[in-house]
């Protein structure tokens, strides 16, 4: 323990020495543009990404995720684990020890009481806290002493790094927010717009949905950071305009979330004034193959899972799914629709590295002949019109997705590829607000899945896939009984898979968890009920003169803004 302390101290000293040439505030003003403007600086009152990221310059969690999805300590010296005793052996509590001498921007010391307060604040029943899921399973947070925080869980929590970890659940100051509990939370406008934090910057002026002015926190723990003396955080406009203001007019240093046509972005970048940076987290554009029968003639039983009855006439045959997957040229899909912001993937769980399987990489190259052979072997033979059939069942699918130009482009390409192997596809697109709206009375939601194939993107927050992989348990299948709520969209059900999920919830060892996650991923892939297409990344751009950017999609993109500096 002591040795480790010394070591980390030495590391910090080395970093200090490296950055010693820079003085706090020496690099002047940093201009950031988020085309969606933050509406508040309190991430607990708004779950939106823009608010969380803006707030991450001011308020900090105990630990963050770096650009590779690794968890890194922030307000603590060391990450608690079972090995170092920070996590109890029964996995029901975790102890965080705060760094010494951390001050709030008002000069008062950060204590464990602030962490306790944060938990109370977000779990207050009338507060409407948007991040309360981060405190799920937490029975209490205790201040053991001024610097020691103990979080107790109701059940064993093999991955205990949820509460107070990541930009979504930072610690807020008790002194400032103690009168803002519960129903009073929205009335504390001054507090919500100008939270006191331990981060590198302090809000000087907050204009909701418009602009935030910040200046360097004079009480920040590293005397030489941040390099920028002030930040202008502007919101508004659209993604293309934000990209232009960094890559073409150089008015801004950093622009966030540039979801625009890949060729437009490439053209702008070609001007040589800035760089586009991409970070891949866990977003995967995928096809779900319906395992239940969506035939309209079934009436109430349409697309309803019934313990293996009511199965889809042909998509439950893995050979069909396999052929469909083999026939797709994912490189073309990436090139046409995503450019730099996408990469080919064969896994529904593509990251972090320790969870990413390599068993399915064969799908990365298109294999039309192979696909045909698979279908031939399974008895699917071309009919008179070229569409394959078996026992009077034709391989003809209804393929739906949300309305979005990239998705419609992908649909058209995939339809063409499937036609080559004798599978017919009828395309359909539904307005995103309806498709993702979740209205149980609408027939067009992605949960109802009144189609054979559907395509969209999903991901999970943080870096632990346990909850995400649990999405495909049998009990998660949306049915009329659950008001069509549920995340097992393709109605995959395998008791062996459920067993793996249960095992993972008991396993604390990281490597073991990685093995289980890969196994689950492979099981899903081999069932061919999900066909992953593109691993999608977050895209931002920064000026050439801005150094230190470590773009991450795992946490706030501004997670290391204290290290950003001007390249001279």
């Amino acid at each position, binding site marked *: 323990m002591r040795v480790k302390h010394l070591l980390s101290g030495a590391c910090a000293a080395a970093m200090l020495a490296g950055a010693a040439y820079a003085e706090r505030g020496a690099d002047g003003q940093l201009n950031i543009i988020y085309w969606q403007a933050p509406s508040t600086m309190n991430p607990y009152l708004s*779950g*939106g990404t823009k608010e969380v990221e803006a707030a991450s310059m001011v308020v900090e969690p105990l630990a963050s995720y770096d650009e590779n999805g690794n968890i890194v300590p922030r307000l603590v010296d060391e990450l608690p684990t079972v090995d170092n005793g920070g996590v109890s052996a029964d996995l029901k509590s975790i102890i965080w020890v705060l760094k010494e001498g951390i001050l709030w921007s008002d000069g008062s010391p950060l204590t464990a009481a602030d962490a306790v307060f944060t938990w109370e604040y977000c779990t207050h029943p009338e507060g409407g806290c*948007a991040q309360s*899921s981060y405190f799920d399973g937490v029975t209490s947070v205790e201040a053991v002493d001024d610097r020691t925080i103990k979080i107790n869980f109701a059940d064993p929590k093999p991955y205990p790094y949820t509460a107070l970890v990541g930009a979504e659940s930072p610690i807020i100051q008790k002194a400032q927010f103690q009168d803002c509990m519960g129903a009073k939370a929205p009335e504390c406008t001054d507090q*919500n717009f100008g939270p006191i934090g331990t981060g590198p910057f302090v809000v000087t002026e907050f204009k909701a949905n418009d602009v935030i002015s910040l200046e360097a926190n004079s009480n920040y723990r590293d005397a030489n950071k941040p390099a920028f003396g002030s930040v202008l955080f502007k919101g*508004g*406009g659209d993604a293309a305009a934000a990209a232009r203001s960094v890559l073409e007019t150089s008015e801004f240093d950093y622009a966030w979330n540039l979801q625009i046509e890949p060729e437009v972005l490439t053209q702008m970048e070609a001007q040589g004034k800035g760089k586009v940076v991409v970070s891949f987290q866990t977003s995967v554009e995928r096809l779900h193959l319906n395992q239940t029968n969506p035939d309209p003639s079934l009436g109430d039983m349409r697309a309803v899972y019934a313990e293996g009855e009511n199965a889809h006439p042909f998509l439950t045959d893995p050979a069909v799914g396999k052929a469909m997957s083999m026939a797709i040229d994912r490189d073309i899909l990436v090139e046409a629709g995503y450019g730099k912001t996408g990469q080919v993937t064969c896994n529904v769980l593509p990251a972090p590295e320790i969870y990413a399987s390599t068993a399915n990489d064969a799908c990365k190259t298109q294999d039309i002949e192979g696909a045909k052979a698979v279908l031939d072997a399974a008895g699917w033979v071309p009919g008179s019109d070229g569409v394959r059939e078996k026992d009077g069942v034709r391989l003809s699918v209804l393929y739906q997705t949300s309305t979005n130009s990239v998705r419609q482009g992908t649909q058209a390409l995939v339809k063409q590829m499937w036609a080559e192997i004798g599978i017919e596809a009828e395309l359909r697109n539904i307005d995103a607000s309806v498709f993702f709206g979740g209205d149980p009375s609408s027939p067009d939601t992605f949960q109802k899945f009144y189609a054979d194939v559907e395509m969209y993107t999903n991901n999970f927050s943080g870096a632990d896939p346990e909850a995400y992989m649990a999405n495909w348990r049998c009990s998660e299948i949306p049915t009329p009984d659950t008001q069509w709520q549920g995340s097992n969209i393709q109605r995959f059900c395998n008791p062996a898979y459920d067993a793996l999920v249960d095992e993972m919830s008991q396993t604390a060892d990281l490597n073991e968890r990685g093995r289980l996650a890969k196994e689950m991923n492979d099981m899903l892939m081999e069932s061919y009920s999900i066909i992953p297409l593109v691993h999608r990344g977050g895209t931002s751009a920064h000026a050439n003169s801005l150094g230190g950017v470590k773009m991450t999609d795992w946490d706030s993109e501004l997670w290391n803004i204290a290290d950003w500096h001007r390249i001279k």
Partner: protein
Amino acid sequence: MLNYTIRRLMFAIPTLFVISFIIFAILDLSPGDPTGNLPLTIPPDVREKIRESLGLGQPFPIRYLKWCQQFFVNEPLNLIENWTGWTIGDGERLRVTSWSTRSPVVDLIAERMPQTLWVVGMSYVVAILIAIPIGVISAYRQYSLFDQIGTFVSMVGFSVPTFFTGLILIVVFSVNLGWLPSVYDTTHKVTDWSSFWVQVRQMAMPTMVLALATTAQLSRFMRASMLDNLNQDYVRTARAKGLRERSVVLIHVLRNSMIPVVTVIALGVPAIFGGAIITEQIFKVNGLGALLIIGIQGADIPLVQTLTFLFAVLIVFFNLIADLLYGILDPRIRYD
């Protein structure tokens, strides 16, 4: 005139109440979920709690009455307190609070008023200053080259949407020439000449884009009104009196032609406060128009309700102003 004004104002009160109710009802009926814009990673039960904390659990009439109380009683009292420094009652009053920012809507509006008035208001002033001479000269020299060019420019101003002219200006002046900023800095404060110059530069493009559209409209209107009056007998009378041509046009014709134009200008004023949704978006001015559109997208009902209602108040008020102006300018009209 005074009686007329008072009578009109009294009629306005029930009208505005009905308007406020209709707005509230429409917003309530329209689909939209204040938690709809949150990431998919936030679970449904948390969303439900957020909705409850916003007061969406209560029945419609209660929510309407609450809004009425907040807007018609609490907000004015709060204003009075701020102006006078008195404390009325216990000072603990619930104000109309926006759902997305959790801050008082009236404060948000007050915060955005300056940039909207600067940019949109200035564009209106510029448009008036350009449109009136163009209209006068076009009418005076009807079918001349000047008139033809004026007609052409007006057609362009009418038919080319602001998002297009705005983009063209940005590409030319910001990207290619690098003369003007493409992003409006709302935190900029004018303290001296150089900062004033910065303000002028950042206002130039949005103001011009908006002014083009308004100029097109006003100059056509001015021209038509001038043409109406130029052919009137009293103009010939004025010439027969031996007045200078300048006096004939500027005193006799222009003043009479201004009557309808002034009315149109007055009726256009509420639109200034409404901001310019598209232009504000393009240049990131983030005024009232941008506030409204964000409110609509985020289903921020208290914000949209309050803003829309304030626009209704302004429209009713400026209709009255326009009518009164007409009465003042045109002696033939009497309100008694």
